[in-house]
């Protein structure tokens, strides 16, 4: 359940930002989770709710923004949407697509007060 560590890391990012940006309370957190990242959305929700207790983000709403996976074929250069890491190129059939989007895990923005 690495989502627990990731949720703790997300909270660390928020805490760091609170000092730099001068806010004391977080109402909403937008997380960008790529469909090719190693995060299970429901597990992340569960863990996030657990780690924000007694923090400046206690009770904050979690909005998960999912991004689609994008791959580029290393053989023919074709770019396509992909759902897994082991898809074949839709044009030439080669494996080994380079992931160009959809593997990120980011704290995008916060609604604070």
């Amino acid at each position, binding site marked *: 359940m690495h989502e627990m560590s990731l949720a703790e890391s997300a909270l660390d*990012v928020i805490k760091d930002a609170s000092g730099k940006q001068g806010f004391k309370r977080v109402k909403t957190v937008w997380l960008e989770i790529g469909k090719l990242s*190693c995060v299970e959305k429901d597990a992340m929700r569960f863990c996030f709710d657990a780690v924000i207790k007694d923090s400046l983000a206690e009770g904050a709403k979690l909005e998960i923004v999912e991004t689609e996976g994008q791959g580029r074929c290393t053989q023919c250069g074709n770019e396509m949407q992909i759902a897994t890491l082991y898809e074949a190129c839709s044009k030439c059939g080669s494996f080994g697509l380079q992931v160009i989007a959809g593997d990120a895990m980011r704290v995008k923005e*916060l609604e*604070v007060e």
Partner: protein
Amino acid sequence: MCMTCGCGTSEVLIRGKQARKAAGADTPLHFRPHTAEVPGQDNEAKRIVKLEQDILAKNDGFADNNRRLFSANRILALNLVSSPGSGKTSILVRTLQTLKDDMPLAVIEGDQQTDNDAERIRATGVEAMQINTGKGCHLDAQMVERAVQQMTLPQHGMLFIENVGNLVCPAAFDLGEAAKVVVLSVTEGEDKPLKYPDMFRAAKLMLLNKCDLLPYLAFDVARAEEYARRVNPGIRIIRISATSGEGMPEWLDWLAVQHQAAA
């Protein structure tokens, strides 16, 4: 249990020697900060703060520090990952026995509980630091930093970090290693690279272990290797047996090339 607040959610122990029984000897290292925030009572207008920050940025910062330390000391650091029972420790024991007279070696062992694996390593005469992650399912870069601070660095040698047996969680956490080495054993399913693609994609080398058992199994080696290359076309694959020694020369050659690059 955490010595600071008594909470039990993060029970990480780092032990450099045999398990000690003295009180306080196993003081857990707590990886969660204990600052208590009280929600503000002000009525400031709501506002949106844009961050766009990688969730793993903090781990990656510690990993960069580790990598710099390894590089400054000319150490080849490798992160061994696999499911439980694939034979990581057996491969390591055999490897250490072969290399220990040639260069400084050290091992960091990651397990949820016990220092049984570190004991197996220490029996070879090589220093081993055991990290017990408690409920944690993977090592992170900060745990490795803490362990490294307590050990003798194998300057101009090799540091093997044996991760918690788990094909999922350790994939995301950079420890500062030069490469991840994934071990798959032939007593597992040959479709594991497809089932757990993140790990096979993150690895530079796959060791296919327990090959001495192939005559007794229906394991399809070619298919397993093809699946691994679907996920990661650049992955190097070595068939090995920690028991019979098959494939050990090839693995040692690979290590020598990586060591050369780190030195």
